[in-house]
């Protein structure tokens, strides 16, 4: 478990690293930590995997990546891990998760996300994926996004920690 100071540090840095010459000192001043403590704690959080990456969080839609597909498959349980690992190695895939099936209405257990500049490019990439990972035979659905009603990235508060993507 992480301690209270780490939680406060994560809450503070999730508001965005200040864009000024000594940003970690500024962050520390907000929560009562020295610059060197902030740096040591962030380094440890990264090493422990509690920070998956630290850096620029881009808005794909604003950069011309307007097509976003969530692709889901129904893969036999004994194969899902192997196929999930193969899919996650493809450069154009952003996320790849196993999730539970939900009865007959939702029999899909493997999810991946593909961002592209157009639907056509996303579908071409999906065709490459299916060929490379031998998923053609499994039932699948492609859910393109339409409207974005809310996208806040993951903002944490003390009472409300958050995640990369559920």
């Amino acid at each position, binding site marked *: 478990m992480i301690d209270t100071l780490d939680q406060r540090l*994560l809450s503070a*840095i999730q508001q965005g690293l200040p*864009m000024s*010459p000594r940003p970690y000192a500024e962050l520390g001043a907000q929560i009562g930590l020295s610059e060197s403590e902030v740096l040591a704690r962030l380094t440890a959080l990264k090493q422990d995997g509690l*920070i998956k990456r630290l850096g620029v*969080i881009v808005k*794909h839609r604003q950069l011309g990546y307007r097509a976003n597909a969530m692709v889901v498959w129904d893969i036999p349980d004994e194969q899902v891990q192997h196929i999930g690992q193969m899919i996650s190695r493809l450069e154009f895939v952003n996320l790849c998760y196993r999730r539970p099936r939900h009865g007959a209405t939702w029999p899909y257990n493997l999810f991946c996300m593909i961002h592209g500049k157009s639907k056509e490019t996303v579908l071409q990439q999906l065709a490459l994926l299916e060929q490379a990972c031998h998923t053609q035979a499994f039932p699948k659905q492609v859910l393109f996004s339409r409207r974005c009603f809310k996208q806040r990235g993951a903002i944490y508060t003390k*009472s409300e920690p958050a995640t*990369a993507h*559920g």
Partner: protein
Amino acid sequence: MLTPLHKRLLNDYQRDFPLSPTPYQDIALELGVSEEDVIDAFVELDEQDVITRIGPVIPPNRIGVSTLAAIAVPETELEAVAQIISAYPEVNHNYEREHRFNLWFVVIAADAQHLAQVLADIEQQTGYPVMSLPLMEDYFIDLSFKLDLHDD
């Protein structure tokens, strides 16, 4: 407009942002520009709304709990239902998608009990059942995203 410096900053600093007292100075040295250039360029990217922030990405379910949830709503009610769901502070993504399950959202909470309460409350407020699909396994290692920023 994105300058060559903007593009380098967008593509090369999605992960391993320098953890040193002067990260912008470190980046400036790597790219052969001044610290002021780097800071100004990041401020411009922020103003142009092409970045959310400089910050951490935290893997799902390492701190607190979360789920991906979906709901099937008639087209005519979609906007109203989406607004009800977006209003929850525990909801951080909410997208319309092309499917019978046409609204997909991520719910995050400090613990499982609070997460279940939010989902039950959304069902009550909207009048539709919520399908909750919590993460079982994450196959992805690196969440950075290689951008093709050639003008086209």
